[in-house]
């Protein structure tokens, strides 16, 4: 008698949920329609004015203009005015700008960033201004001066600094990410090394030269060290690289397989997965690897820990205690274990900087012949509601949040082959996807600041 009812429910429930979700989205659409996205600030970026006749100014100006425009376009909070719609004039100082010209159609800008740039005798001087185009009486929001050596990289970093200042002022007090770095695994020539790049994919270069298989880099919250897992004759061991010293520093070895280190936000402890007692469990040690203690004790593998960066009091991790790997959270002392996913095959969690969301890779219909694939999902921790961010783009894995909580970087392979992995970035709502690295980039980790 029980079974037919259950069978009926099992058939009807998905459609009921589907209908319910249809109604929910319909309601949302009505509301977003009336709102019409007025909160996105429309910003125009004028080409900076060269104020020295030095021949090195022109290439530096081109780099600066392109970088500043890309930074503001990628910030996720601006509706940027296409350069073809902006006025022809290049104002170099507040006295030269006709603010009405920028406020009028077709630019219709609410904010204008402009300034001047000069390079002479090895010095780069940039004056940047941000004006509120709707406030004719007191238009000035920002005025900044930057000096640096005159090189292409300095011009790019200066543009990042000015963009971060604008995003910080207009984005509600959340610091911009244009100066952050992404650490990742670069595979080539039979080895996997830890590499580093700027947040926009520029300046890619190697960090380690171990000639081994190194995976899952995690940078410390103060940007001083990188912890990663490396394969040598003792199996997988946690290794530590100091970015300040530019060399490897000691981290004690242990028996078994030691994987996926994770930094606590106070920079004092490292959680990792170790099978030194036979079964992979979550361990916590201080950053020198001493005083290691075990915090999980169930059969089945426990891997990929990650701290709640807001509080440091919780850990999300992947456990196979019920069969296929699932996403769990617990307090940092091992109590209060809560299962987050209800099925499928979940891997690679990343906790959002504000502590409210978990991003992870999930194959919801795992098994032979099952539809769908592995994609990036974001789950609200408090309610366990989730949304899917990638669709039909091949296998996606290793999401990592940017420190402002607006972006997610991840690895994607369109044809499913591991050596074709490349790193992509997107906004945390799944829009503006674009690749950062060539194929061979894997396991990105966004720096904390």
């Amino acid at each position, binding site marked *: 008698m029980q079974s037919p009812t259950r069978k009926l429910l099992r058939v009807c429930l998905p459609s009921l949920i589907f209908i319910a979700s249809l109604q929910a989205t319909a309601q949302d659409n009505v509301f977003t329609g009336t709102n019409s*996205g007025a909160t996105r600030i429309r910003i125009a970026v004028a080409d900076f004015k060269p104020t020295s006749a030095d021949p090195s100014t022109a290439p530096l100006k081109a780099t600066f203009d392109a970088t500043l425009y890309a930074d503001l376009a990628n910030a996720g909070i601006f509706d940027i005015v296409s350069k073809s719609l902006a006025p022809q004039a290049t104002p170099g100082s507040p006295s030269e700008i006709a603010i009405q010209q920028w406020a009028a159609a077709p630019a219709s800008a609410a904010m204008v960033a402009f300034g001047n740039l000069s390079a002479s005798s090895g010095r780069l001087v940039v004056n940047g201004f941000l004006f509120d185009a709707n406030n004719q009486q007191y238009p000035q929001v920002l005025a900044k001066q930057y000096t640096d050596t005159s090189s292409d990289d300095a011009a790019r970093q200066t543009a990042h600094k000015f963009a971060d200042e604008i995003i910080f002022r207009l984005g509600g007090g959340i610091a911009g990410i244009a100066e952050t770095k992404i650490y990742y695994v670069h595979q080539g020539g039979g080895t996997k090394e830890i590499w580093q790049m700027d947040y926009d994919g520029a300046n890619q270069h190697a960090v380690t030269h171990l000639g081994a298989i190194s995976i899952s880099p995690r940078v410390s919250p103060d940007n001083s060290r990188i912890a990663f897992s490396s394969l040598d004759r003792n199996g997988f061991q946690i290794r530590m690289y100091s970015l300040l010293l530019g060399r490897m520093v000691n981290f004690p070895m242990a028996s078994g397989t030691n994987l996926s280190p994770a930094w606590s936000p106070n920079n004092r402890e490292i959680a990792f997965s170790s099978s030194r007692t036979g079964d992979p469990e979550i361990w916590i040690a201080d950053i020198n690897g001493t005083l290691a203690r075990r915090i999980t004790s169930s059969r089945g593998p426990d891997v990929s820990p990650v701290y709640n960066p807001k509080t440091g009091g919780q850990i999300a991790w992947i456990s196979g205690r019920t069969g296929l790997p699932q996403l769990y959270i617990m307090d940092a002392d091992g109590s209060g274990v809560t299962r987050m996913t209800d099925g499928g095959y979940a891997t690679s969690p990343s906790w959002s900087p504000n502590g409210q969301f978990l991003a992870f890779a999930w194959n919801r219909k795992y098994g032979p012949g099952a539809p769908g694939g592995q994609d990036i999902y974001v789950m609200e921790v408090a309610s366990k509601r989730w949304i899917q961010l990638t669709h039909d783009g091949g296998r996606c894995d290793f999401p990592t949040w940017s420190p402002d909580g607006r972006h997610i970087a991840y690895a994607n392979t369109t044809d499913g082959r591991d050596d074709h992995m490349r790193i992509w970035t997107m906004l945390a709502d799944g*829009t503006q996807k674009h690749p950062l690295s060539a194929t061979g980039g894997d396991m990105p980790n966004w720096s904390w600041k």
Partner: protein
Amino acid sequence: MATSSLTRDVPTENLRGNFLGAVLLHVLIAAALLGYTFVFDHSGHSWGDSAAPSSTIQATMVNAIPLPPRRPVNADNVLTSETPSPAPPTVKEKTAPPPDPKALAIPEKPTKPLKAAERPTPATAHPQPMKPQPSKAQTGDAPGVRIAMSATQTRAGTVSIGATDAAFGARFAYYVAQIKEKVANQWYTTMLDPAARGHRVYITFQIGRDGSPSQIRIQQPSGDATLDQTALRAVQHIDTFGPLPDGYNGSYINVVYYFDPPPAP
């Protein structure tokens, strides 16, 4: 005799009953097994099957990700598209064909010169005293946010803000607009009582130099508890509004913020 008596003593065994009994028993066992598997069916509980998950429900992203709501992009409109389209192809200017050499010119009709009636020169107007200009801004006159108090229609309803330092609102209009947006985004109207419509609650708070709100109080309750509480929570939920503008010398600003519930959907 003995054998006949023996054969006579042993009754012919009736195996029919036993056989039927055995068959019935087997059928019963088979039925019990089938019934057991039918009742205690665990087929839906193995991982990775294709059954729909029932405890999580696909949901839309809440406002906690600090991205503003996105309007649907109209790809035809270059002003709104994410990827600006390239410039339109230049149309080649057509040259007019040369006139036919055999064509005859159309004779022009002689036109009469228009008669213009003489108009009397208007008398110069007597100079009038200038009318006093209204001290208030006309509706639609002011470009953007010029006054300290401003109201906006948002998804959550009408919200309005007045920085009590009137000069601040004019001087740093962008910062005031930012406060308005940030609070409106954190206001969860789903908890509102329908009876809250038509009420208005005033919240006051201070924003320190570093942008953190403090002294969050209800200045004037609306008379509806759900409205008061959701409005208070909206401000309490915010860590920072961003540091006060560089040009501002004070150490904090006072903010009055009022919340009007959204109209019926």
